[in-house]
Structure formats: structure tokens, C-alpha cells
């Protein structure tokens, strides 16, 4: 009796082991080892990228078909108060006042023309006539005035430069007045997507946030939160150009593995490579990626908190030791993002007008030298400190940076404790004048052509991150020069000088990496070289789909 039981038991053991072995064998095929070497060609122009890899100049454009894009989530609001999502997913249906071509020239769209008065600090916009919204409302100056002014209600007026007044002087003219000179007037106003005031008044904010009513060649068909967003062609478009594609859809797939699998299954038409492994995998399957340019890229940075004068990080030499010699930034960037992240020492996105090669000054880690510098500064045995990082939302990925930085700094004797903390909490502490935390803080920020705006908002002596650092006199002086510049060249030079002082000399800001977008297209999906139009999303007339 015992024997048969044992035999049964043995049978089941063998079965179990066989299954386990099969699984391992499965896992064995499909292994792709990869040693990521620090790579990265830095893109050099504002709006680059030649569209889909299979684009043929002058090829016939077929009408019909569907383009499916993918997002991890719909972030932000479909509302005029903060147009963060509009550029990503609303451009089929919403239109901007103007758009920028690859050479930086502004072209008209909903605004036919404009004039700038540098002495009176005004911009006069002439609005296009004969445009209707998808629900039949007429588009005119009152919609422009309202879309721009409504930002004041939500405190986001600084995104358009905090104008003093916005007035519709007649049905098709709007005058915007600023309080001082700036080179960014057009950069502020023209990429704004226009919403219908009448719809807002009639339906209320909550409806507007979930239903997109615009003037564009496509109208919203369906929006299921966290699932998908679909547009179909609107036959009542004001222009005479042809919109080729029948339907644009955005699907939500939060898992990056699932995104890549969906692309390879043919379920989605276009994919931004979410990580280095996805990049390598897609390339190994024969897909060619296209660099989409770093125009509105993301830069992660670390800011040493230097308010506490007893902390080692308040010493410039310590900060320089850590940033210049203490961490292998290239390895970190390539390890965390492979071909899609690269390290740069420049503030902002490489390719900004003020950028030159000599802004790059770290040459790879030198742990011995870092340790010596620390010893010279009075910390021969290193020191302990905290590293704060945010989680969720735009800070996804900060924990990876924290992990890496912690391991690297351990090599030079600096013991780092990683503390998850919402950066807005820290921000608020400083604004309320509470006691300073000491340590380091990981942040991430989007850069746009509005380089001075980002600077003013965040890193100026009154900006949101001003509360974590002590500004040297030289730094303040250089900062003021930026605001005083009257021409683009002067501004570029002032920015360069400031950045050198900010990152190299004072070492108050440590760029970690920028993210570059590498895009993949299915063979039947075509985005021409003119498809990307700066901060206005994409030009729907430059996209078409083959029959397949």
C-alpha cells in the first residue's frame, strides 16, 4: 500500500519537474543579452526627425484607414486651463493660433497674421474668418480672448507669460498686453489650442474636460477614460486641404511590455520606444526607429539642497566633487534608458539655441579624485545625507535614479538614504518659510522653446525651486542679464553664461539625463517630414495610411 502511494508521488514529482524544465527551456530561447554601452548622438536642431522611416518623397497619399497610437495614461486635462494633454492627443480636433516649421518660422493657422509692438509690449492677433467649431458655433475673437484669459482663473497664466490684459477689440482682433519686453511673445501665444467659449458656458467645465470640441479636421467620436479616445473625420472643416485618415485612436496600455507586444502584433500604428530593451527588440525585428528630436523633451535633474549651512552640500567644493567626479552619469543614463536617455551637462534640452559643445564638462567618474576632493573639503570619511524623490505622475522613474545614485555615491563614501517625498511638499515648505530639509532632491521638468520661462518659473530667485539653494552674487547678476536681453543673440549669450555658472561653477543644478524620443512606425503608416509642428502637436494633413 505504501509502495503504490510512493510511486504515485514519484510520478507527480517527475511530472512537476518536467513542466518546470519545459518552462525554463521556453525561457531559454528568446534570451537576448545586451551590454548597453554609453551611446547617444545629441540632436542638434529644434524640430528634427524625418517622419516615418519608410517615407518616400512625393508618394501618393491614399485616403482612408485608421491610425492607432498608444499612451500609458491620459495625463492632464482636456481643458483650456492647462493644455498639457492637448499637444499629445488633441491635435486632430483642436487647432492652435499658429505653428512652427522645422526652420523655426511661425506660420498662421487660426490666427491669420499678427503684429508686435516692442515699445508698448503688445501683440495684436488677427483671427481667421469663416471657421466653425464641430458643434456649429462660430469661432471668433471672443473664443480667443476667453481661452487665453481663462488661465488666470486657474493660476496658469505664467504659461503664456502672465499678460497684463487680453482684449478682443472687435470680432476678429485680439490685443494682448504684457508688462515688459520679452522675446517669447509668439512662443507663448501661438501654440495655444483654441476652445469654444459658448460650449463652456453652456455645458460647464466637467463636460468640456471630457469632450473635445474644436475647429480641427477631426471631431471626437468617443472617449472612455483609461481605455481609449477616438476621432473621426469632420466633414465641415474650414480649410480646403484633404484629411486622409478616417480615424485616429489613442489606446491606453499602461504596461510597457504590453505596448511593445501590441506594436509587434500590429495592433498599434506608431510607438515611442518606452525603454532601451524595447528599442533593441524592435530594431532586432527589423523595425527602424526614427529620432523625433528633443524639442519638448524631459530633463531629470538633482538639486542639492544648500540652505543648511552646516550640511556638507552647502560647500561648493563638495557639490563639484560629487557632480564632476563622483557619479558615472553616462552609465546611469544608458543603464536606465539605453538608447533613449543621454546625459548632458547643459541646463535644458540639448539643441536649445544657446547650446555649444563646451557646456559638457564631466568626463566620466573618477572616484579617487572625488574622494580626495571630499577629504580636502573636510570629509575624509564621507558623510551621510538624504535623497528625496517623487513617485507617480511626472516623477515616474525618479526611484530608478535614486537607486543608481545611491549605489554610485556609496563608492566614494557618501551614504545616501533614499526618501520618497512629493516635491510639492518640499516646495510648499519653503514657500511657507519652514525649516529647511537638507540633502538632495530629484526633479524632472519639460523643456520647451520657452527656455527663459522655465527658468523664471523654477530657478529664478523667485521661482519654485529657489527655496532649496543659496544664490551667489555672480549667479544673480547673470540671471538678471537674461531678462534684460533685447535680441535673441543677447539672450542666448546671457543664457549660456548663466548655465555655466549654475552647473559648472556653483554646481547648484545637476542634470542627470534627457530623454530622447525614438519612434517606430508600421510599414503602412506614413508621417511625412512636415508632420511634426513644434508645440502644436502634429499636422493631420501630413499623415496617411496604406491599404493593408
Amino acid at each position, binding site marked *: 500500500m505504501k509502495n503504490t502511494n510512493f510511486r504515485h508521488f514519484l510520478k507527480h514529482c517527475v511530472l512537476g519537474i518536467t513542466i518546470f524544465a519545459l518552462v525554463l527551456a521556453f525561457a531559454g530561447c528568446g534570451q537576448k543579452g545586451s551590454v548597453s554601452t554609453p551611446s547617444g548622438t545629441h540632436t542638434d536642431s529644434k524640430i528634427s526627425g524625418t517622419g516615418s522611416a519608410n517615407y518616400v518623397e512625393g508618394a501618393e497619399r491614399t485616403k482612408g484607414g485608421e491610425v492607432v497610437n498608444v499612451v500609458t495614461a491620459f495625463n492632464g486635462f482636456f481643458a483650456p486651463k492647462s493644455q498639457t494633454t492637448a499637444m499629445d492627443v488633441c491635435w486632430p480636433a483642436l487647432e492652435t493660433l499658429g505653428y512652427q516649421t522645422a526652420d523655426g518660422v511661425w506660420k498662421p493657422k487660426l490666427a491669420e497674421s499678427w503684429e508686435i509692438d516692442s515699445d508698448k509690449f503688445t501683440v495684436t492677433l488677427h483671427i481667421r474668418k469663416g471657421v466653425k467649431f464641430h458643434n456649429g458655433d462660430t469661432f471668433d475673437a471672443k473664443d480667443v480672448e476667453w481661452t487665453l484669459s481663462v488661465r488666470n482663473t486657474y493660476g496658469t497664466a*505664467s*504659461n503664456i507669460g502672465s499678460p497684463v490684459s487680453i482684449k478682443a477689440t472687435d470680432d476678429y482682433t485680439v490685443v494682448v498686453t504684457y508688462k515688459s519686453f520679452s522675446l517669447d511673445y509668439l512662443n507663448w501665444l501661438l501654440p495655444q489650442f483654441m476652445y469654444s467659449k459658448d460650449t463652456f458656458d453652456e455645458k460647464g467645465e466637467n463636460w468640456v474636460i471630457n469632450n473635445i470640441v474644436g475647429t480641427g479636421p477631426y471631431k471626437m467620436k468617443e472617449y*472612455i477614460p*483609461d481605455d481609449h479616445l477616438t476621432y473621426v473625420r469632420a466633414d465641415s472643416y474650414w480649410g480646403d486641404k484633404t484629411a486622409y485618415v478616417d480615424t485616429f485612436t489613442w489606446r491606453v496600455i*499602461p504596461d510597457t511590455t504590453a505596448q511593445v507586444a501590441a506594436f509587434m502584433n500590429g495592433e498599434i500604428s506608431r510607438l515611442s520606444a518606452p525603454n532601451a530593451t524595447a528599442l533593441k527588440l524592435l530594431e532586432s525585428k527589423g523595425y527602424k526607429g526614427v529620432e523625433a528630436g528633443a524639442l519638448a523633451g524631459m530633463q531629470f535633474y538633482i538639486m542639492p539642497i544648500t540652505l543648511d549651512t552646516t550640511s556638507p552640500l552647502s560647500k561648493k567644493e563638495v557639490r563639484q566633487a560629487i557632480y564632476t567626479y563622483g557619479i558615472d552619469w553616462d552609465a546611469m543614463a544608458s543603464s536606465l534608458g539605453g538608447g533613449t536617455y543621454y546625459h548632458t551637462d547643459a541646463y535644458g534640452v540639448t539643441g536649445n539655441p544657446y547650446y555649444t559643445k563646451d557646456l559638457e564638462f564631466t568626463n566620466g567618474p573618477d572616484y579617487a579624485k572625488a574622494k580626495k576632493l571630499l577629504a580636502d573639503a573636510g570629509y575624509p570619511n564621507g558623510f551621510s545625507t538624504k535623497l528625496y524623490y517623487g513617485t*507617480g505622475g511626472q516623477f515616474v522613474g525618479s526611484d530608478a535614479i535614486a537607486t543608481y545614485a545611491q549605489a554610485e555615491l556609496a563608492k566614494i563614501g557618501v551614504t545616501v538614504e533614499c526618501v520618497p517625498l512629493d516635491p510639492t511638499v518640499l516646495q510648499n515648505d519653503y514657500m511657507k518659510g519652514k525649516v529647511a530639509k537638507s540633502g538632495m532632491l530629484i526633479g524632472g521638468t519639460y523643456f520647451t522653446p520657452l527656455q527663459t520661462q522655465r527658468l523664471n518659473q523654477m530657478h529664478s530667485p523667485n521661482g*519654485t525651486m529657489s527655496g532649496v539653494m543659496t544664490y551667489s552674487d555672480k549667479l544673480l547678476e547673470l540671471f538678471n542679464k537674461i531678462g534684460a536681453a533685447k535680441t535673441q543673440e543677447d539672450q542666448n549669450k546671457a543664457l549660456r553664461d548663466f548655465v555655466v555658472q549654475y552647473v559648472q561653477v556653483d554646481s547648484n543644478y545637476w542634470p542627470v539625463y534627457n530623454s530622447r524620443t525614438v519612434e517606430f512606425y508600421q510599414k503602412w503608416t506614413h508621417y511625412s517630414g512636415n508632420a511634426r509642428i513644434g508645440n502644436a502637436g502634429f499636422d493631420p494633413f501630413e499623415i496617411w495610411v496604406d491599404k493593408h
Partner: protein
Amino acid sequence: MTRYLLNRLGQTILIMILVSFLTFFLVSIMPRDPVYALYGSTIDQEQYEIGYKELNLDKPIIQRYFIWANKALHGDFGISYKYSTPVTKVISDKIGVTLYLSIFSMIISMPIGILLGIITAVKRGKWQDTVLTLLANITASIPSFVIAVVLMWVFVIKLKLLPTSGFTLPWVDFGKSMKQGVLPLVCLSLVGIAGTCRQTRSSMLEAIRQDYVRTARSKGLKEGFIIYKHVMRNGLVPIITLIGGSLGNLIAGSAFIENVFGIPGMGNLLVNSVNNVDIPVMQASVMLTALVVSVAYLVTDFLYVAVDPRISLR
């Protein structure tokens, strides 16, 4: 009986009130600035002050609790930080998905689990029992997300048989709904079957050991008759607990599956709201979860009493 009913009902209401206070307090110590969360982090100081007052943050916590509770009783749980829509709408969009998947998987797993449990109890000691119990133990021990990840790897990545993620209701697109739903349902059901089987087995064994069974056997009655008449009817009472427990675990149990397969349901919402510190949604979700669990236990207790009068009404 009515006294017991009222007593239990009263208890449930008390629990809900306690839970609401606990949730509110817990959430208020979250390290997230609610003003920046709602209005974005680029607003200026002036705007911040205005927002601060609007959210009643200048008032003491007890007062804030009552304001929130008052609004909640009228069905207003505030506006979600992430979706900028009323919380009630966000939840109502997603609860249906979770309910659909959970109930579907319960319909599959309960009968199968009970059947398997009966088999193992009846054939106790024989090879059917050993194999099934072993399988049930193993399946119940493996974390649900492990099963989900492994199944996803096998069927989606290696074999490319099924779509990666997403969710469609069957009356919208039957084929797509079935394809997308297979893996999540299989994962949920496997866990359900294993648990049900084990529970059924132990309660059936408990019943078999009882004296009245021995008496029946000694009277010479056939084994099958005994099983049917005595063991099953008594052994199945704890099944009610099982159903109640599964219903209660609806939301938390689906969290992992929804996370792996990208299903926009309540479980995922709960997890994301904690990760993103979306305070209004978090408060409402926790309250809802507690409500579901409490109601499930309430119903279970009533059924218990109704089915087995021997159970004392304390």
C-alpha cells in the same frame, strides 16, 4: 431574529462610520500637497492661498471631516485630482468592470471548486485526493500576480495567442471581449477554484467526522446516501461564508490582476489612487471597499442563521 438583524445592521453602520473617520485621518497625513495636486505645481503663491482656502485646509481636521462627511452623505465625494471629474463618476465607470469580471469568475470557480472539494473529501486518502489537494494547495499558495505574469508571458508573448491588455464588455464586441477576458478570468478563477476546493474539503471532512454520520453508517445506510443527505447539507454551510468572503474580497483581490492586464477597474483605481495620492478618490474607494465587505459579511451572517438554526444568535 429581528433583534439580531437590527443588531447586526446597527453594527455595520457603526463600522462604516469608524472606517470613514479612520480613512479621513489616514489620508490627511499623506505627504502630498492637495493644493498643488489639484491645481498643478506651477501656480504662484497668490493662487496657492486661494486654493488653500477653497479646499478648507485652514480649518481644523475635525471640522474638515464633518464637511467631507456631510458632502459624502449627499453623494458628493469631491473631484478627482487625476481625472478632474467627480469621484462618483470615476468610480461608477470602473466598478462595473470589476463586478463583471469578479462575478463571471465566481460563476466559473464556485461550482468547479465545490465539485472538486466534494471529490477530494469523498475519495479521501486515494490518489484523486492527493493530486487534487496538492494542486489546490500549490495554486492557492502562488501569489496571484505571479500566476498573472507567467500566464501573460506564455500566452501573450511567447505564443502570441491573445491580446496584451484592455477590456471590452461582451455586448460591445463579443469576440474581442472574450479574447481580452480569457487570461484575467483564468487567473481569477484559478485562485477561486483552489480556495473553494480547499474550504469545501475541510468543511466536508469536518461534517463526515461528525457523530450523526457515524450513526447513519452504523445503521447500515449506503455511503452515497449519507453523503447526500447529511454531509453535503451540513458541510455546505461554510460555503456561504466562502461566497461572502469572496464578495468581500472583490476589489482587493482583483487589484493585482487588473494591474498586470491593464484593466480599468476598481482594483486598479484603488492602487493608482494611493500611488498618485489622489485623495478624494482614495477616500471614496476605501469607503466603498469597506461597504462592500461589510454588506457581504452581513448577508452571510443572515444566510447562516437562516440555513442553520443551531448557530447561536449572540
